[in-house]
């Protein structure tokens, strides 16, 4: 019996042990593990340098499922790039759209640029998290391009594999893989150049992290890529994680 005949979603994963083991492996090995253990799995492709995941996965399995969140506010270059990736690999890229009624309500109540006055979360919630949730409710596992070096605040501790409780179907499991978690931006770009992977032309114009057009800007030398996103907001961090400390240290 092969691993794919015993789907993981029916089992209780010991993700901590698995994370420790997979963390020592390359992104390609992590992807191979993920694709071998789940049939109903998809890559979340943002239209930026996470294209390396599409390239790596395509070399393993050509029937990979890829989806992209079209917020309606992406750069024209990003739309063109997503189309280029679709043509380059000859794969369908499922485009997910936000709920029209929710977008209309938001725009009617707060205008088209409410995120500059409030914060980006309401808009991101409607335009990205809503459609993402709808898609993830249909999957057993998903793959992201998240890396620890993308944000020292919010991504410093992301594991290679985790149980995704926020988006799992009721009573079912959803496994999230972050094969690039331990890679640096430099390693990603080395891979792109070495393998002649197509990339978003905005990167050549100083954009490192690419999201929606109003919320993304190029950054200068020495600036962290995080500074190119939501730069008008203060770095406020919600602290909801559980952090065990040595009791003796806290006395």
């Amino acid at each position: 019996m092969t691993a794919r005949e015993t789907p993981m979603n029916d089992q209780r994963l010991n993700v901590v042990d698995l994370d420790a083991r997979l963390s020592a492996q390359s992104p390609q090995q992590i992807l191979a593990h993920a694709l071998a253990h789940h049939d109903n799995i998809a890559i979340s492709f943002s239209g930026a340098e996470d294209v390396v995941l599409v390239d790596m996965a395509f070399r393993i399995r050509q029937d990979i499922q890829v989806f992209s969140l079209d917020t309606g506010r992406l750069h024209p270059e990003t739309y063109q790039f997503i189309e280029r990736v679709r043509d380059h690999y000859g794969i369908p890229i499922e485009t997910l759209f936000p709920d029209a009624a929710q977008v209309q309500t938001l725009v009617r109540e707060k205008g088209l640029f409410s995120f500059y006055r409030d914060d980006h979360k309401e808009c991101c919630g409607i335009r990205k998290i809503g459609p993402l949730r709808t898609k993830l409710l249909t999957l057993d596992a998903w793959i992201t391009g998240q890396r620890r070096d993308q944000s020292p605040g919010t991504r410093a501790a992301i594991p290679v594999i985790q149980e995704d409780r926020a988006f799992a179907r009721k009573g079912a499991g959803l496994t999230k893989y972050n094969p690039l978690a331990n890679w640096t931006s430099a390693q990603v770009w080395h891979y792109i150049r070495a393998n002649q992977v197509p990339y978003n032309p905005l990167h050549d114009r100083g954009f490192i992290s690419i999201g929606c057009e109003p919320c993304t800007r190029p950054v200068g030398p020495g600036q962290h890529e995080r500074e190119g996103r939501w730069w008008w907001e203060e770095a406020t961090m919600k602290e909801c994680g559980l952090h065990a400390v040595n009791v003796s240290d806290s006395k």
Partner: protein
Amino acid sequence: MKITMVKKILADGSPCQKCGEVEHKMRQAGQLDRIDEILIADERDLASPGMLLAGELGVDRAPFFVVEEPGKPPLVYTVYLRFVKEILDQKTDDRDELREILDGNPDLDFI
């Protein structure tokens, strides 16, 4: 059905702000009556009941809710409004739920 809520105390001894906000909302909405047990996850004490339960279930955030029914695996909710919608069967604002997901999972903002 048994419902357990786990809230936490931070490593510096202060209560978790989000846990307090959720508990306040639940009290106002009369939802606390539906909670059978409240456990504390004290970050200074690995053996505190909430920390033990979090470890057992592989949960890395608080507050969270555990719903147990005989003969079924426990359901774990880390999104309060989803718990309210699916378990307490009460209407919620979807925009609020989406925002709560993003608040609790700030790494998602780059997706």
